[in-house]
């Protein structure tokens, strides 16, 4: 069945260092992947999503590349900022037209000075 795996529960790094949050998936049909970000005491909101034409989505310095060969959609940023500290969810659109998303367990990113 369809599933999403985020292996890291907590990632702690120093400001200015590169960020990579892992996301792998299993999908019955052609996958559409999303990254949502949730800052403390706020609602989750869309950070970026995969394109159908293999373009690399980017937003607020973050980018992710859909690799169907390895079933991955890792989130990356070249230089972490303190304001990037948040909970990040990877999500997979379930096949069919329900619009349902399966979310991973989430990765908390803590950026320290």
């Amino acid at each position, binding site marked *: 069945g369809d599933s999403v795996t985020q292996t890291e529960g907590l990632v702690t790094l120093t400001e200015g260092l590169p960020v990579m949050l892992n996301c792998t998936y299993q999908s019955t049909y052609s996958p559409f992947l999303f990254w949502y970000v949730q800052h403390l005491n706020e*609602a989750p909101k869309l950070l970026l999503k995969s394109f*159908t034409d293999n373009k690399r989505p980017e937003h607020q310095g973050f980018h992710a590349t859909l690799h169907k060969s390895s079933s991955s959609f890792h989130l990356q940023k070249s230089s972490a900022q303190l304001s990037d500290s948040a909970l990040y*969810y990877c999500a997979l659109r379930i096949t069919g037209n*329900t619009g349902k998303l399966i979310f*991973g367990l989430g990765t908390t990113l803590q950026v320290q000075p």
Partner: protein
Amino acid sequence: EAAVTQSPRNKVAVTGGKVTLSCNQTNNHNNMYWYRQDTGHGLRLIHYSYGAGSTEKGDIPDGYKASRPSQENFSLILELATPSQTSVYFCASGSGTASQNTLYFGAGTRLSVL
């Protein structure tokens, strides 16, 4: 941007009591969803709806009912609340028509069942 409003924002309920969480969206989205968020479990889908009058079971529907009386409103009902239902609940809406469905979340309701 899409607007999804949840009420109440915080709720304390007693075990065995009835709880209703409300959600309103003003973007004319067909699809609406109820998720709960728990540490170690991420976001889990409870119920969802394709439009007014429809409700569907999500991944963890036991102990919950849903109601979609109109395009704008989607309620989550706990008929007999239990302490295990203490959680943060998020409502979301989405068009559901495009292949890439963006969900817009409300601010959440923090429910404590004592």
